[in-house]
Each structure stands twice: as C-alpha cells, then as structure tokens.
C-alpha cells in the first residue's frame, strides 16, 4: 500500500488544483464529514503548495501517449493501481484524522475511458454510500467517457474537471495526439448544462453573463435530479504554461471565454516542468514560475476585479509585464484614470487602484460612511500604501507622489524613493522582486 501511494500520489503531483472550496454541505446528523465553503488547507508540501485533498491517480497505467506527461504509455515508469475499496478506506482513515478535506481523484486511462470512469465512480460511490462520507470530492472526467457515466459521477461529487492542458488545438495535436479539443470541450459543455439545469439558484448569482446558450448536439437530455446535487462546486480546468508557443493574451482570452461560456469556477495554470525528453517539447532550464504567477494575478483581475482581457492588453504587447503585477501594468498605461479620490470613488474604481485589494476597498467604502478619510486613516484601516499612494488622492497625500510622469512612476514603484535609495540596478537584482515571486506563488488555494 505504501508503494502504491508513493507512485500514485507522485504521479498526481503535477495537477495543480487542490481547492476544496466552492461547495458547502452540512453533515448529515450523526455522520461523517461536511464541506466548508471557504475551503481549508491542511498542510503545505515542500514546494510551498497547499495540501487540501488526498490527491492521487487511481492508476498511472495509461493507454495514451501525451508528450508532456510523466505517465504516458511509452514511458518506462513504475505502474500501480488502487482498488476502489482500498482507496475509499484510505480516504476515510485520512479524513478521520483531519489530514484532508476529501479526495481529489484522477486517473490514467486503463483499457478504455468508460472502464476507467466506472472504476472512479465505484470508488466515490463506496465513499458516499457505504462510508456515508460527506466530505469534499473532486473528480476528473476522463476524456472520451460515456455521457451517462459523466452524469452519474457528477451526482456524487462536489467538483469535476476536464483538463484542457494545452491552450490551442494545434498544440494539442502536436503534443497529445490521442486527445482532441472537441473531446475535451464536449464533456465540459455537458457538465455546464447539467449544472445549470440542476443548480438554478447558484447560476443566477454568477457575476459573469453566460454568453452562449447551448447548441444542438451539445444539448443533453434533461435528467431528473434533486436541485443542487450536480457538482455543486462547479468545474475547473488546467493549462500547462510554457510547453507551447501561445502568448499570455491568447491564454487569458481562452480563460476568459472558459469562465463566460463554460462557466468554469477556476482555470489553473501549471508552469511546465520537463519530465520527458521529447523533441516536440522545449528545453527549459527551470519551470516558468514568474510567468505562472503573473497569469494567476491576471486571472484574479478577471474573476474578482472586473477587468476584461482586452482592457488589460490595450495599447501594449500581448505579454504580461514581468517587472510589475498586471494591475500596475494596466494603471501605468492609463494615467488619465488617476489619481482616484478615495472619499468619493465608487467601489469598482477603488478595485482598480494598484495596492488596493477587495478587503481594502470594502473597508474604505464602509469607513468613509462615518467620516472623511485621511492618509493616516487609510494606514490605520490596514491599507498598504507602498503602491497605492501613487494612485490615490486623499487629505494628507504627498503632492510629489501624484501626477508623476509614467517613466518616473515606474522608477519609484521599482526602487521606492530614489531620493532615499539613490542607486541603479537591474530589476532582477532586487531582493523584493524575488521575494514577491517566491512568497506569493498562489496555486491551489481558494
């Protein structure tokens, strides 16, 4: 069992999703397990990524031969497979000790997609029906599996995901010849439609408009089910970054359309880690972690800060700035929008100020109802002024911080105050820069 777990957890580690959020369930009286809406991290691995779920492959035997994948058919690696009983029991024994929020189950394709999907369903059925397990379950939909099986799985789990992996059809063709974009998008659309049908409440609350009504062949047969019981946590996907030539704008445009058209809860970005030698793949000295980090930041702007991809890249190259986070990048291109009057600006405008996050913006809106805010008040509210001070007008603001010409502003943002620290250096030398990237590597959380 120890060897199986070592192999099948090791084989699942490149899947970055680990969130246990987006769903919420009270425990049934006297039984085991519930789901906390916020998601809970139970530990952090040596790479600094959060561990929330027991993340394993059911098996790493695989019929496919995707170039980027450790478990591809042509690789000579140790192979193993759980039985549904073993895996259900392991999950319960971990859960009872509060190691995990639940199970994240993916798999290589054993024999054919339907057979694999059936094994996964048997596992989660055991958990739900025999062990009465009420915790979180995230299940991978196996591309190419029968829709009936997908639906059945969806009634048992909190979240489902289909990994797109590569950001374009041509890259997919090159690196994953056994998969097609259709084969991935079709189940995604089905899950969306079933989710829409069975969770009407949740869908009304969504921020983003649902753009495309489902079209003929994608329309699933309506199925009877108690409302709220089909993947209440929605679906997510993963894109590998840096294995193929797509630029940031293309990637984020894809994400935006997945959020809008497929109503995904999350798109995860995974810096490409070379695990195979293959002439179709680039040789990277190390995974593009900074790029991954910037994509997550931009993704946040799409989902929580009401930015669109077109706005972000307007008047600029199709790549995110490496020196600055995407919000600063946008602000530097739009000097006409600043400074923002913190005592008057509406919430959405506050959200666009570099350095102001959702919590800061909410606190400002609340606090200014009972009195006019000064520079010092903002500090007491816990607003971090390091970046914000260049973009807001408030009683007590330093005049010399505002209305700076963009080049000078860049300089100030990069080095702090040049009058205090008069030295020239390349941005990559800057310890703050490195620290930011290393300490904020948001991946699986939330």
């Amino acid at each position, binding site marked *: 069992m*120890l060897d199986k*777990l*070592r192999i099948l*957890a*090791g084989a*699942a*580690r*490149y899947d970055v999703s680990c969130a246990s959020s987006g769903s919420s369930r*009270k*425990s049934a*009286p*006297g*039984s*085991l*397990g*519930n789901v*906390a809406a*916020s998601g*809970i*991290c*139970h*530990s*952090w*691995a*040596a*790479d*600094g*990524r*959060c*561990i*929330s779920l*027991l993340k*394993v492959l059911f098996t790493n035997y695989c019929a496919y031969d995707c170039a980027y994948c450790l478990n591809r058919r042509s690789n000579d690696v140790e192979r193993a497979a759980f039985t549904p009983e073993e895996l259900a029991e*392991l999950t319960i*024994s*971990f859960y*009872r*000790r*509060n*190691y995990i929020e639940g199970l994240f189950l993916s798999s290589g394709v054993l024999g054919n997609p339907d057979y694999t999907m059936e094994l996964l369903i048997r596992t989660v059925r055991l958990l739900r029906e025999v062990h009465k397990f009420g915790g979180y379950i995230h299940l991978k939909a196996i591309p190419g599996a029968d829709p009936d099986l997908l639906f059945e799985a969806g009634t048992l789990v909190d979240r489902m995901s289909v990994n797109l992996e590569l950001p374009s059809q041509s890259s997919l063709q090159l690196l994953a010849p056994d998969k097609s974009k259709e084969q991935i998008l079709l189940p995604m659309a089905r899950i969306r439609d079933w989710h829409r049908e069975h969770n009407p409440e949740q869908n009304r609350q969504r921020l983003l408009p649902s753009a495309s009504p489902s079209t003929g062949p994608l329309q699933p047969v309506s199925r009877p089910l108690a409302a709220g019981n089909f993947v209440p946590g929605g679906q997510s996907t993963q894109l590998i970054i840096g294995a193929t030539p797509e630029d940031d704008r293309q990637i984020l445009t894809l994400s935006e359309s997945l959020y809008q058209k497929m109503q995904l809860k999350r798109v995860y970005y995974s*810096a490409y*880690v070379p695990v195979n030698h293959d002439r179709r793949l680039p040789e990277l000295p*190390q*995974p593009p*972690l900074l790029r991954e980090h910037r994509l997550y930041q931009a993704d946040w702007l799409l989902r929580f800060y009401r930015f669109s991809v077109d706005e972000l890249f307007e008047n600029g190259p199709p790549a995110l700035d490496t020196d600055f986070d995407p919000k600063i990048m946008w602000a530097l291109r739009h000097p006409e929008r600043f400074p923002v009057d913190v005592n008057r600006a509406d919430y959405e405008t506050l959200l666009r100020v570099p350095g102001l996050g959702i919590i800061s913006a909410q*606190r400002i809106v*609340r*606090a200014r*109802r*009972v*009195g006019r*805010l000064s520079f*010092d*008040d903002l500090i*007491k*509210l*816990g607003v971090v002024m390091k970046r914000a001070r260049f973009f807001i007008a408030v009683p007590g603001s330093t005049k010399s911080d505002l209305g700076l010409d963009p080049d000078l502003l860049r300089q100030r943002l990069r080095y702090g105050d040049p009058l205090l620290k008069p030295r020239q250096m390349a941005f990559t030398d800057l310890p703050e820069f490195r620290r930011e990237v*290393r*300490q904020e*590597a948001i991946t699986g959380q939330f």
Partner: protein
Amino acid sequence: MNILRYDGSFYSLICVLVPWLRQRYLPDGIARENARQPLLFAGEETAPASSTDLALACSACDPQVFRLPGVSRETWQNAWHAFLSEAPGIEMAVARYLLLAIEKQGRVDSFMADERVRLIQRLAKKVTFERHRFLGLLRFRSIGDNLYYASIKPDHFILPILAPFFVERFADQRWIIHDRRREMAAVYDLRAWTITERAATDLPAASPKEDSTQKLWQCFFDSIAVRERLNLALQQKFIPKKYWSDLTELPGR
C-alpha cells in the same frame, strides 16, 4: 477606585460590566479572580456572576439576554473573539469598545481608525485566524475504539470556537482536543461536547493501526511535492515552526 472582579469567563465579565455600561460609565479596572479555578467552584463572595458550567462559561453567551442597545451581533462577536486572545488588559479594552458601541448606536465597527475599535478588531482577527489555521493543522490520532485524540498549543484560547466545527465534521467519532498550553481539553462523546481541565499525564497509547496510517500520510506528504519547485521558505511561511511538533507529517525533514 472601582475594581470589578470576574471569574475569568466571558459570561462573567459581561455580567459585571452590564450595569456600568447601561449607565455609560467605565470602571477603573477589572481583575480576574484566581485564574480558572473559580470557574468550577466559585462561591458568591468571589465572583458576582459565576457559572458552574464550563461550556457555558466559555461560550459567547447570547447578546439578546443582556439587551445592550447599539451592540450588534458583529460587535458582540468581535468582543468575544478578542476576549479569547487573552491579551493583557483585554477586559478594559472590551469595556471601552462596548461603551463606544452603545454611543455609536450600532455603527461602531465602521470606525475602524478609532484606536478602541482597531485594537478589538485586530485581536479578534488574530484569534479567528488562528482558529482557521487549526481547522486544517489539527491532527487526530486514534487511541481506542472510535476514539481520537489531538494535541495543540495555540497562542489564544480557541477551544470554545474550534470545538463546534469538529462536532459538526466528526459527529460519529468520539474525540478529545487537548490544549497543552492551558491544560484544558474539549471533549466530545457523540452526544455533546464540553470543556474540561485535564492533566497531561493520562494519555492513552495509540491504537494498533495508527502507526501504519501515519506512515501512509507521511509518504503522501513527501510524494506530492514537486521537487523542481522546492520552496521551503514558502512552506514555513504557511506552517510556522511552532506548529511542527504536533504535525503527523513532519514538515522540514
């Protein structure tokens, strides 16, 4: 000098404070009687409002009972959570905060730049943050038939707000959460939970399968890390070293 005395519980603190707050006055000081002992055996002469039931004494009590005008549910929660921080002088800080709440008629928590409000909100946040952290970092081990034990050393007295979460989650298993910094424990027996004082000496031995399950968890923990992305500083930022000794997975190896 008007020094109020209370038995160390939030309930008792509020009981002695309420008459003052209703008159819009603050006492000169508030003293805690003899740490926790009187919680159990208080006579009327030591604490004006003593509670004999620890769970009640440790709970937030119901704000409705005290009918303080202007004290919203949010304000009440903040006061209670800040109190659990056990910060020195917390009693007077709570008193000042509640008095301001009465003056501001329900809007006190919008005055975030006011020192009286800031202090309470900051302490409350620390306490709820630590609670949230332990929702994940607490580790049970099996010590008998359907009986589980966890040891924690939290900075704040979070047992009263931690236990209800595990009551809901692990409703079908008996468990003990032992706060070793305070030598107190939350105990759940499938019907109800309570907080007791307990000595650290009577720990039962682990059950037979416990060792192999722990090994499996350690194996998973090691296997799931991506070596190419090794970042121990980030790991330590999320799990400060002070928590390592109670973690089954042994981080930092």
